[in-house]
């Protein structure tokens, strides 16, 4: 590990004041230190935000919840309000990592965790995300875990997170504090970026911008499901995951929100998928139409070709469970 300066912040304002271009905030450290040990990330300075008073989950006036950026994944999953009103979020969190990691992993850090692309982790490989302009060894290499939607010439990596997929279906808002003292409220739909020509830039955050909270809107109608498909039954990243929320009224799908993990550089959501469902009676035809809409423009890179049929089947299975008879 390269050495670095270390400072512990005692307020969000102090944290952003201490941050410069070469700084990273450290929360749980479970992703950052992993990458620093491998010298994939080499920040000159760490600002320790782990003691900030941002570890509460509060009720909001309109019925939603405001989650502090430092709330641990385990606490968020176990919160009784989240369990009863946002089951998809609890389920996504519980499907991720291990008991030990969830105790450390923070809400903000989880949103910003970086890809598990093998070549990103291996400093001997070419990787445009790690070293812009060096090339991408994944395109022609082992790309079993890579993206099939929204890829670019420069990068085909996925966002590996589970929690952010549920948050995408729930339409959370990410609240930040900028260096100049301004606060921003960024809908998660606008938070992540596709790789394009700058795969090293993953979100719309400015350097030194701190996530302070994540706001959950009032609980949605209908059933909520998180389904994660992976190489082993526990403690593995998603190959494909689906966060689904839907309600059925008078025999027709009245509302639907579907977000996908393992398919793209960001938690993926496509309005065409939901449009193919709303107003339709739940049926194999409607579910296939939704899958067709999802996979328009999808392409594999060899080892990950299986993700196309897997995404279709997982989506259909989730839609069956969301709209099937309550028994």
């Amino acid at each position, binding site marked *: *590990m390269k*050495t670095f300066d270390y400072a512990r912040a005692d307020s969000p304002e102090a944290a952003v004041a201490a941050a410069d271009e070469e700084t990273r905030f*450290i929360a749980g450290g479970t992703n950052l*230190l992993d990458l620093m040990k491998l010298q994939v990330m080499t920040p000159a300075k760490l600002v*320790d935000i782990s003691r900030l008073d941002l570890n509460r989950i509060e009720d909001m006036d309109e019925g939603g919840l405001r989650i502090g950026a430092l709330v641990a994944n385990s606490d968020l999953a*176990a919160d009784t309000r989240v369990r009863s009103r946002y089951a998809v979020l609890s389920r996504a969190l*519980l499907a991720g990592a291990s*008991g*030990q990691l969830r105790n450390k992993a923070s809400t903000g850090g989880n949103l910003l965790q970086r890809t598990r692309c093998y070549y990103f982790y291996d400093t001997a490989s070419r990787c445009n995300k790690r070293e812009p302009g060096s090339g991408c060894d994944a395109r022609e290499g082992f790309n079993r875990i890579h993206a099939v939607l929204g890829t670019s010439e420069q990068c085909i990596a996925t966002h590996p997170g589970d929690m952010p997929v549920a948050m995408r279906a729930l339409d959370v808002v990410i609240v930040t504090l900028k260096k100049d003292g301004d606060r921003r409220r960024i809908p998660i739909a606008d938070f992540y970026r596709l790789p394009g020509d700058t795969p090293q830039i993953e979100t719309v955050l400015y350097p030194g911008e701190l996530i302070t909270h994540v706001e959950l809107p009032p609980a949605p109608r209908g059933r909520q499901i998180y389904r994660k498909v992976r190489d082993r039954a526990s*403690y593995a990243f998603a190959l494909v995951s689906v966060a689904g929320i839907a309600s059925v009224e008078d025999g027709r799908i009245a509302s639907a929100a579907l977000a996908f993990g393992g398919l793209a550089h960001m938690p993926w959501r496509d309005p065409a998928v939901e449009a193919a469902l709303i107003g339709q009676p739940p049926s194999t035809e409607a579910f296939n139409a939704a899958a067709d809409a999802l996979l328009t423009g999808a392409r594999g890179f060899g080892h990950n070709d299986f993700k196309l049929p897997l995404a279709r089947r997982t989506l259909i299975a989730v839609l069956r469970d969301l709209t099937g008879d309550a028994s």
Partner: protein
Amino acid sequence: MQFTINGQVHEADVDIRTSLLDLAREHLGLTGSKKGCDHGQCGACTMIVNGRRINSCLTLAVMHQDDDIVTIEGLGGPDALNPLQRAFVTHDAFQCGYCTPGQICSATAMIEEARMGWPSHVSERLDGDVILDNDEISERMSGNICRCAAYPNIVDAIREVAEAGA
């Protein structure tokens, strides 16, 4: 820097990069916690910090100066094994023993999590009491890898203690 480990205060002057695991093993002579992967994947380094199990390899010592840190040495020693340690012996829940300190620290905190009613990925419902059956124990302990695959006996040992405490 000052650290409280197993109720004892230790002073150590360490490089800023030192992980909590390396602090204990290399600087304080507490070698019970093991280094397996050093990347949070195997669980051999599990310690209990402020009552919670964490991977001590993926955190910096400097971040834990005000914390209450417990390692396997703090749970019991050869002359005074705690119930989980004894159950691991009775059930032959290890072969080479390298993962065992991490397994025991992890299980200790895991049983508390279940008592608090925390659900898991395999829990049918998100509410209600948690019953630590084999599936629940396996899922909740998935962050602790055993290269010898002593899993059936590890699960038996943990279940015995969980049931006795229930």
